[in-house]
């Protein structure tokens, strides 16, 4: 069955490899190869493949690391990339090898460069004749260096080429085919990055502190370096622990709102109301947290969290109810409720008195002071930071417990071992809990300073689990998904669409409302209180997150992490005058637009007809067919998101399912 006559890469794969390699080869020549150092204003010393060193920095005398080896490796990369182009043109079976080598060559160049820069830094550190200020300046000058577009592109293109070339082999094809769901988000991100790069190229003047005038060529290199600098700063938080924890902190509310939008998507509803639900959730959490009886003690925290969920659920239930009962569009209603929630928010914490029919009433929810904000939460209602939660070090020493990690490993191992046992999941969960409790006191010392990541991140993860279990492991979830795929068929199957609509919007609202705990109970607004600067826009970002995560729990987490990362990185980008954080907003909007358009990919690429159909049509030129349908592919098919599902793809899926049985 798995017989594949032609093990050469398919024409499509060859075309992909050709484009990637050609772009990388052009990039090697057109862009700077590496950055040898970077100053505080993003002024850089650039190295080009030709060996030319362009110094745009104010510091013209800084000694630079030797670049001979890097250049040689750069030329080798170029040769390998060109070889890949030739191989892809002839659809050769070997071009994955040249692609892989080009990638490795590029990585080697980056490593050699990093070594050279490291040597310079060490020399600076050992040089006692320098002033401390100058030494610090020089050190950050060298640590700002690294690869540039000229090396980044061939590394990336090499990976793509290798993947495309390997897809000619059946085993690899199937392995890659499993990742097909990532295609649309990946292409959408790439396109958004490309458009954003053009915006930076147009909008942003080149940074040149050298004083020498820029010609056309030097100006181009300086500007393209700027593009790379902006993006490498945006994605920088993944490279170090502290900014990574910051991005987790920014990702937390996105997980909540992303789950909210995704949950509604699954039921065929579009929840634009996450900002309003979040606001009401935060208000409720504040009301309980501040005004709840302090005699409740520790119970105040769970009550406050529940209040947040209930507030959001209420705000989500209203449009659900209106849709089920009166058929009015949830899209408009959720938007209107956003405005109403925002008015309510300002009303409650904006002023302590209000006039009604000419009489003055007092509603003292606002704290003293100029800023619109509520009183501080009582101490028991506050969520601890994860640092406090996981720190088992004594006497102020910092040591993070290994328990979560051990528990995770234990769970995975037990799950794998008990794959075929009924209730294996529950047993694995118990084993994980036991392992976690036993290893709680064991800690590893860590270098973390003042991370504000709070326990609402754990609540978010619990919501992720709840989403997954509810949607795919319960009858309710089955009914909800049925309503999402085809309301009429669900109705015929005895499922109440009205009930599904109300339930889905209520739960979606609850997810969004719980995001309020991050801001209020978790102190993410720098204080444990409700404040006027609550970023309700994360509710809209939830749409992007849900779309990018294909409305799956894991996808939502991954997309939230990405967005949290670039949000954190955008703070670094702001160091540059004129490049503002709104560029990140534009990038996110473009990602949504491009995902909505299916990455402008052909439908046959994103949602290919199942092999059985292709065989029946006698279509010979499609990629090597995987006979039968592997469980993973079938699982993936089930997981495709509902919002962009159209008639034709639905038919495809039905056929797939029929054929798979």
């Amino acid at each position, binding site marked *: 069955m798995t017989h594949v006559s032609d093990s050469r890469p398919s024409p499509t794969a060859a075309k992909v490899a050709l484009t990637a390699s050609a772009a990388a080869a052009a990039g090697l020549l057109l862009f700077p190869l590496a950055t040898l150092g970077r100053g505080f204003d993003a002024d850089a010393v650039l190295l080009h493949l030709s060996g030319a060193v362009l110094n745009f920095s104010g510091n013209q005398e800084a000694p630079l690391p030797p670049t001979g080896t890097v250049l040689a490796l750069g030329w080798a990369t170029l040769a390998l990339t060109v070889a890949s182009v030739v191989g892809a043109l002839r659809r050769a079976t070997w071009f994955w090898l040249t692609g892989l080598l080009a990638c490795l060559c590029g990585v080697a160049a980056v490593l050699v460069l990093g070594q050279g820069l490291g040597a310079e830094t060490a020399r600076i550190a050992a040089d006692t004749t320098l002033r401390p200020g100058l030494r610090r300046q020089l050190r950050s000058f060298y640590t700002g260096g690294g690869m540039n577009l000229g090396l980044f592109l061939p590394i990336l293109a090499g990976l793509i080429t290798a993947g495309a070339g390997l897809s000619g082999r059946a085993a690899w094809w199937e392995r890659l085919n499993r990742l097909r769901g990532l295609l649309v988000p990946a292409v959408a991100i790439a396109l958004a990055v490309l458009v954003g790069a053009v915006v930076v190229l147009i909008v942003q003047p080149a940074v040149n502190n050298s004083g020498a005038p820029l010609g056309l060529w030097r100006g181009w290199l300086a500007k393209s370096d700027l593009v790379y600098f902006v993006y490498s700063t945006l994605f920088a938080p993944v490279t170090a622990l502290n900014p990574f924890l910051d991005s987790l902190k920014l990702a937390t509310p996105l997980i909540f709102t992303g789950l909210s939008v995704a949950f509604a998507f699954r039921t065929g509803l579009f929840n634009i109301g996450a900002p309003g639900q979040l606001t009401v959730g935060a208000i409720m959490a504040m009301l309980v947290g501040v005004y709840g009886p302090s005699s409740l003690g520790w119970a105040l925290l769970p009550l406050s969290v529940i209040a947040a969920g209930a507030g959001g659920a209420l705000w989500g239930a209203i449009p659900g109810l209106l849709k089920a009962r009166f058929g009015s569009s949830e899209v*408009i209603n959720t938007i209107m409720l956003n405005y109403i929630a925002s008015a309510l928010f300002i009303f409650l914490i904006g002023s302590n008195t209000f006039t009604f029919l000419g009489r003055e009433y007092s509603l003292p929810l606002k704290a003293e002071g100029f800023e619109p904000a509520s009183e501080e939460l009582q101490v028991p209602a506050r969520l601890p930071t994860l640092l406090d939660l996981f720190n088992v070090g004594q006497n102020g020493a910092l040591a993070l417990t290994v328990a979560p990690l051990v528990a995770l490993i234990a769970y995975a191992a037990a799950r794998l071992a008990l794959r075929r046992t009924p209730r294996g999941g529950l047993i694995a969960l118990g084993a994980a809990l036991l392992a976690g409790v036993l290893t709680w006191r064991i800690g590893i010392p860590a270098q973390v300073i003042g991370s504000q990541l709070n326990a609402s991140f754990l609540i978010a993860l619990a919501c992720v689990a709840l989403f997954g279990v509810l949607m795919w492991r319960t009858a309710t979830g089955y009914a909800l998904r049925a309503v999402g795929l085809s309301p009429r068929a669900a109705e015929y199957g005895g499922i109440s669409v009205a009930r599904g609509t109300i339930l889905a919007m209520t739960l979606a609202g609850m997810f969004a409302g719980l995001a309020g705990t991050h801001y209020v109970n978790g102190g993410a607004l720098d204080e444990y209180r409700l404040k006027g600067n609550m970023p309700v826009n994360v509710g809209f970002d939830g749409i992007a997150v849900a779309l990018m995560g294909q409305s799956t729990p894991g996808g939502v987490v991954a997309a939230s992490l990405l967005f949290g990362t670039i949000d954190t990185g955008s703070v670094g980008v702001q160091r540059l005058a004129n490049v503002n954080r709104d560029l990140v907003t534009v990038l996110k909007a473009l990602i949504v637009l491009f995902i909505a358009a299916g990455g402008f990919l052909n439908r046959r690429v994103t949602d290919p007809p199942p092999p059985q159909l292709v065989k029946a049509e006698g279509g010979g030129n499609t990629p090597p067919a995987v006979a039968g349908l592997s469980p993973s592919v079938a699982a993936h098919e089930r997981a495709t998101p509902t919002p962009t599902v159209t008639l034709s793809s639905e038919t495809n899926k039905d056929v797939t399912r029929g054929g798979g049985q």
Partner: protein
Amino acid sequence: MEGLFAQLLTTAFLATFIRSVVPLLLTGLGGLFSERSGVVNIALDGLIIFGALAGAVATLTLEPSLGALAPWLGWLAGAVVGGLIAWIHAVVSIKYRADQVISGTAINLLSAGVPAVILTALYGSSTESPKVQNALPLWGVGELRFSPPVFFALLTVLVTWYVLYRTPYGLRLRATGEHPGAAASMGVNVRRMRYSGVILSGVLAGTAGVFLSIGNLDSYVRNISAGLGFISLAALIFGQWKPLGVLGATVLFGFLQALSITLGGTDLLPPTLVAALPYLITIIALIFTGRSAAPRALGKPLDG
């Protein structure tokens, strides 16, 4: 209470009222063209913002050389940019068959970021443009002096009604939204009709934006649309996708907005809550229109 009525019967209130109706009316009629062709246009709010921005930027750029002629070209620029952005929505939702609500939301998200980037690049401030010296002229008498888009809006109601019900184009547009398959079999180019409907909606919403930035104020400020696009979308639904219905609904919503502006200065109700009133009434209005006479093919991409 008498004080309130005395306040409502002034020419100042009438002027506020008309100024509130105009952007709603223009945007609502724009949405009418788009939705009658079968394309949901939730992007109207973003289109207003882009139109307002383009109007202000074009006027500011042309002012030194053209003087009083500049705002007219600014109007043109706002309409064209509105049309262009709507064209993006059209391409994504017609050619690439994207979910139209999501595509529209993406345009709205764009309108939250792009103006700030452009304003920063041009004027160094991310929230507002400098003031234009030559805003659109005001025509009329006494307190009832309005810029040309106001008169244009009233004219557009009649033109829209005539085009929709008395021209072959209108017939084809309606057919495209009701039954694209049948329209196609009669030789109507469904895609082209939809493109034209969506682009027209952008032109009109862009004009509404121009009215806000250089017809009513004299600069672009952040969040200039303040949700007008969504209210006019509700007005479109409330008005049953008919030109005169849209006129009636926008008059109602405009009255509520003017009322909330006027009430904001009194001690009858808390102004922050009054600001929420139009949205609350929109929800209630939608209850009563409920399952209404939407174009049957609204939101469905054409197969084949």
